Structures are given as structure tokens and as C-alpha cells.
């Protein structure tokens, strides 16, 4: 295994350079003179395995930096542990990373429940929980209580609010029907949508939950149609979002559709279009902050060219159209930026300090104009995005960047 051989190599290097190493300052765990070790869990097996692309994108980015000599002459090793999307396994995996493998920071662990399960532990151990891959609001909101934890992406609450504002401002007396996943993720989006609608004439007339264990959402869509709504908000994971489109089309229901960002990727929308036969898809609204690899706009974009070449080189066989890889590279890029700022003598406390004072307007994997920014009480790294409309087979952005002040 890569980690093991690296450790072995590091041990040899340490033995040779022991006097030198002793002369240097004492760094935090996970840092040697030649490497810096990050670790995180990701679902490599089980129902959420498609999200593993997030970790693989980040790893590919680190590998590319390592090929150029690493950061401050240190290679970035990123150990990915499978947790099968089960928080109990996340706990075991993360304790293993911290106590046995002695990682410098826990990075990019995926899932709201998984990150919640390890947050108290990591904060007590004073190990950074860097860029938790989840859109729960708590990562930014509770930064004072959990100084060692920071998220990355815009919160689901911010996203839901943006949809609510959009409907309130652009549609008179809209009747909104909502299909939502029956957990914190779906409920966050639904709650924020309602508060975004506010006191406008538009309101939510029906909301149907579904369980992730359900085979299909046909019954829910039929009920939502019966509510007489003219707007359908889909707050679901990709498989169920596709189903929602398919069932709405079968029922001959033609609402205006809002689909949340997790499912509103181009490859999912193409699947939902059923080869152009499904007209419900046309005109759908979503919001996004990442550059979409299938979007022809980015054909000659430097960031996306970099993305494609890195993925082809460092993650062979990976699906280049899978936008989760782009997400992984975006967090990888910011992490390398943080490590660079730490310089020759990285510490865990220094890492968190740097993460709480980011200001990067040039992440090549995020939409132009998006600034990764924290500091002075703001603990949400990314809180911008752009609304876009599905038009003739691709996403077309409209309006400017939205900026969430509330999160």
C-alpha cells in the first residue's frame, strides 16, 4: 500500500537524517521532512459509492502536485478509508487515521451524519476536520463551539433559500410542490425554500417525503400532481431526481421544475431527458458553483483543461463527465493553497488559522467570480453560486452570482 511504503521510506529517511530532524523544530503528527499525511473516509462500497469520486478527484490533484515536487518539498499523501457511508465505520476509520496512522488532518470526509459522528472527537483531540464534504449549516454556524471543524460547499439552507427567492421574485402566486429526501438534507432544503418564499404570494402547497430505501417515487409524484401545483421542487439524490422527471412526464404533468445542485448535473439531466422525449426537463432551474465538465462553455477554459488532463493522468478510467471529481479537485486545490501558506513548518493550529482566513478568488475549478473566503466571523468558505436554466440540452446561467449572507 502506498501509505505503508511511504511510511517505510520515511522511516529510512528519518534514520539517515535523524540528527538533522532532531535539529529541526518539532512538528505536529503526520509531517515528516518529505511528506505530509492527510486522511479521510469516503464510501468506496455500498449505496453511496458514487460519491467516492469526490475523494478520487482530490487525490488526483494531490498526485499532480506531488509530481511537481509537492508543497515545501513535502509530498501530500492522502489516505482514503472506506466507511460504506456508515457513521459507525466513519468513527472507527477516523480514529484509526488519527491514532494509528497519525494523520496531520482529517480531510474531505463525506456525509453529514459521518462528519457529525466524528466532530466531537476530532475537536477534543485538536485534529483539524478540514473541508467536511457536506452542506449542513452547522459546520459554519457552530465554528465557535467546534474550532477544529470547517466545511466547504454552500450550505443546503443557502441553496434552498435562493430557490425560494427566485420563485418569489419571478412567479406570481406560484403553487409549489416539493419532493424531498426524508432526512436532514432534504428537510434543510425544504425549510429554506419556505423561508425564501417568505410572504410572497407563492407558497408550498404539497411536500412529499421519500425514503432512500424506496425503490421508486411514483406514488409521491402522483400525489404532488394531484395538489394542483405548477412548480415542482426536487430535493433528492440523482437516482430519485431522474425518477421524478420520468414519472412527471408519464403522468403528463408539465410543471416548472427546480432541481437541487447535487442532482442538477448535466449528465443527470441528459439521462432524465430520456433521449429528448421527456419535455419536463426543459427549462429546469438549478444552482451550481462548480464548472460542469460537460458544458461546452469550458471547452477551452484553462481550469477545465487542467481538470481533464489531471484526471486522465492520475485517475485512470475515471468518468471525466462526473462533476464530483471537479468538486474533489476544487477542495484539493484549496488545501494545497493552505499548506503553501503554512510554509516549511506546518502545524495543525496553523492549518486551522489559515483555513479561517482564506481569500482565494482564483480557484480554477469553481465558476468565474466565486471567491473562497473566510474570516472575521464568516466560516463558510464557499457561499456563492449561479442560477442556471436547462435549455436545449445544456445549462445556461442567468442572473449574476448570488451571494448568501445568511447560510
Amino acid at each position, binding site marked *: 500500500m502506498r501509505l505503508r511504503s511511504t511510511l517505510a521510506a520515511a522511516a529510512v529517511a528519518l534514520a539517515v537524517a535523524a540528527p538533522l530532524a532532531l535539529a529541526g523544530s518539532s512538528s505536529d503528527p503526520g509531517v515528516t521532512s518529505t511528506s505530509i499525511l492527510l486522511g479521510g473516509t469516503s464510501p468506496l462500497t455500498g449505496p453511496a459509492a458514487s460519491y467516492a469520486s469526490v475523494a478520487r478527484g482530490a487525490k488526483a490533484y494531490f498526485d499532480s502536485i506531488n509530481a511537481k515536487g509537492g508543497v515545501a518539498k513535502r509530498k501530500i499523501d492522502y489516505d482514503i478509508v472506506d466507511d460504506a457511508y456508515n457513521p459507525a465505520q466513519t468513527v472507527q476509520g477516523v480514529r*484509526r487515521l488519527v491514532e494509528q496512522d497519525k494523520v496531520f488532518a482529517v480531510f474531505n470526509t463525506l456525509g453529514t451524519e459521518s462528519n457529525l459522528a466524528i466532530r466531537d472527537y476530532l475537536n477534543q483531540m485538536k485534529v483539524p476536520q478540514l473541508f467536511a464534504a457536506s452542506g449542513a449549516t452547522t459546520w459554519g454556524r457552530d465554528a465557535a463551539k467546534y474550532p477544529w471543524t470547517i466545511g466547504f460547499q454552500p450550505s443546503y439552507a443557502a441553496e434552498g433559500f435562493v430557490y425560494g427567492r427566485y420563485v418569489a421574485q419571478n412567479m406570481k402566486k406560484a403553487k409549489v410542490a416539493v419532493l424531498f429526501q426524508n432526512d436532514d438534507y432534504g428537510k434543510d432544503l425544504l425549510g429554506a425554500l419556505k423561508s425564501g418564499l417568505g410572504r410572497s404570494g407563492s407558497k408550498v402547497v404539497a411536500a412529499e417525503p421519500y425514503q432512500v430505501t424506496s425503490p421508486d417515487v411514483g406514488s409521491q409524484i402522483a400525489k404532488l400532481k394531484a395538489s394542483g401545483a405548477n412548480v415542482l421542487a426536487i430535493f433528492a439524490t440523482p437516482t430519485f431526481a431522474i425518477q421524478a422527471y420520468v414519472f412527471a412526464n408519464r403522468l403528463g404533468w408539465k410543471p416548472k421544475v427546480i432541481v437541487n445542485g447535487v442532482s442538477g448535473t448535466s449528465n443527470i439531466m441528459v439521462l432524465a431527458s430520456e433521449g429528448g422525449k421527456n419535455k419536463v426537463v426543459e427549462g429546469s432551474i438549478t444552482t451550481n458553483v462548480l464548472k460542469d465538465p460537460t458544458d461546452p462553455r469550458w471547452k477551452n477554459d484553462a481550469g477545465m483543461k487542467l481538470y481533464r488532463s489531471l484526471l486522465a493522468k492520475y485517475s485512470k478510467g475515471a468518468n471525466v463527465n462526473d462533476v464530483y471529481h471537479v468538486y474533489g479537485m476544487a477542495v484539493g486545490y484549496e488545501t494545497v493553497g493552505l499548506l503553501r501558506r503554512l510554509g516549511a513548518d506546518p502545524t495543525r493550529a496553523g492549518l486551522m488559522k489559515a483555513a479561517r482566513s482564506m481569500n482565494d478568488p482564483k480557484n480554477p475549478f469553481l465558476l468565474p467570480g466565486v471567491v473562497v473566503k473566510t474570516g472575521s466571523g464568516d466560516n463558510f468558505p464557499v457561499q456563492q453560486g449561479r442560477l442556471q436554466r436547462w435549455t436545449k440540452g445544456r445549462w445556461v446561467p442567468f442572473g449574476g452570482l448570488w451571494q448568501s449572507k445568511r447560510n
Partner: protein
Amino acid sequence: MSPRTQRAIGFVAFACFVAFVAVLPAFVSDFKAREYAYVAIFLIALLGLNVLTGYTGQISLGHGAFMAIGGYTTAILMAGNEQFGGPISGGLKDVWTLPIAGLVAGLVGLAFGLPALRLSGLYLALATFAIAVAMPSTVKRFEEWTGGGTGIQVFATPELTGSITNVHVLGRTLTPNDWMYYLSWSIALVAFAVAWLILRGRTGRAFRAVRDSETAAVSSGVSLARYKTLAFGVSAAYAGVAGGLFVIASAFVNPDTFPVALSIFLLVGIVVGGLGGLSGLVFGAIFVYYLPLWSQGQDLGSLLPDRIVEETQKPGGPAIVYGIVLILLMFVLPNGVGGLFRRAGQLLGRRRYSPRK
């Protein structure tokens, strides 16, 4: 060998094992002690499951659900559920929740044992499987008791548990990991001894009679209803204690903590350990804890070529390895590690008495 010598050898072996368990943490890293604590927890669950499946012949694919009952009992007694609108304020120290966890799970097991009387073989497997599958959704439904999908954090009450901060016990200071190790293994060894006592006597004979032939058991005066439900109760109580310990070790519980996969792995554990034997179960427990890790190349890095390890770290890779190993084990170890032991014993014995050629 006479039964008496056999028993003497058994006692000596058990005493050696206890001594081994007692000194082991001195020779391994702090973190390993924590991993071995999980092995003890799985051992407790396997001991219970083996009473039911190995000795009484009733297949359960739902023991994860009984672990969940114990686990939630422990979490609720410690952290309470008033924060979700439930009636219990919590505040009990972690160790004292365990007997209650065992009791609650045991009672549920007894209750389930009654209808299970009507089922056998694959049908019972299917029915218990149904329980394991239904458990997470049911837990979510009763949110005011269980905290719904988010679950319960035991970290919120660090003063009640030794799994978070150092523990002072018998004049010594233990790290959380060593504390978990000694707590889990003490309970596991007691559980082992209790299982042995139950199984060697009248009750054990009745269990085995039920397994070997229900008709013969009934005609020799064994009450099927009594012993089958009893086996369910005992088995579930073991699972409940294991579930409680599991939650203490993880300091966290939610509906995904005890997935269907866990129930299945437990069954795999007793088959690997050897049905109807106790000592092999230690290997079953090691297997249950470590195979998922080994499947992703953890701990085996230096033994495997990098090329293979890289493949197993791709999405889906660990599952392929895990599944294939499972199937191969059923081929090469039909009677588990315990069967291997017995077989080795027989071979040795035979060689001793075989006439020279």
C-alpha cells in the same frame, strides 16, 4: 482422552487465554488495544448467536437488530432523549447501562422467540432478515425516542463514559483505549464462561437435542417451546450487551450504526468460527472486525503488490475482495476454524493410536 482430562486441558487453555488477554495491551500500541476491544464486542455477539444458531439450529439473520436495541438502550440511558422530546433524562454511567441493555434486548428476544417457534430453516432466516431490514426505518419513525436519522451523541456526556477521557480504576490510570479493551474483554470472558456453563449442562443438552431432531427431542420430554424461546432470549441478551458496548466504544449511535450487513457478518462470523463450538469464535470475531479492513488493503500493505492494493482502493474494489473471500472460506473451511481444531485433534489422536505399518 477421558472427559476429565479434556476438561482439565480446557481449563488450562482458558486460564492461559485470560492471562494472554490481560497482558496483551502492554505489547501493542494504544490504538491496537482499541481494535481488539471491538473484537471482544463482536465475540460477545457471536457467543450469543452461536447459542441460537450453532447449538439450537435456528438461523438468525437479524442479530444486528438486537444489538441495535441494546445500543439504543445504552445511548438513551446515558445521554437521555429529552432533547428530542422523549421522556428519559439519562445520566446513567456507561457501565451500568450494559446490564439493562442486555435485559431489554433479552426480553425482546424472548418475545420474538414465541412467534419464531412456528418457523424453521430458511423461513426463519427470512423472517429475522426482515427484522434487520426494518430496524433502521423503524428507529427513524420514533424520532422522539431515538433522535431519528441523526442519532444520539454520547460525546455530549463525557463525564459518564470512560471511552473519551482517561479512567482511574483500581489505583491505575488507563487511556480510553485501554479502558475499552479491558472493559470489553472482561465482559467477553465472563460471557464466554457463562455460555460454557449454560451449554455444558441440562440446558445445553436440550438445545442440541432440539437442533439434531425436534421430533426426537419432543419424544424424550424436551419442551420445544421452552428451549427455543429461551435460546432466543439468551442470544438476544448477549447481542444487547454487545450493542451497548459498541455504542460506548463509538460514542455515537444512529440507525446506520447497525445495518443489515452487520447481521449478515455476524452469521458469517459464527460459521467461520465454527458452529456449535466456543473457542473458534475468537477467530470468527477477528474475522468480522478485520476482513473489511483487509479487503481494502489496510494492514496488508507490505504483503500485497501495490498494483492490487490500488485496484482495491477503487470504488467497489473492497466489496469484490470481501465477497470472494467469503465464498472461498465456505469452500475450504466448511466447519470453520473450530472444525479445523477438532479435525486437528482427531488427526493427532488417530496418529497416536494407529498401528505401525
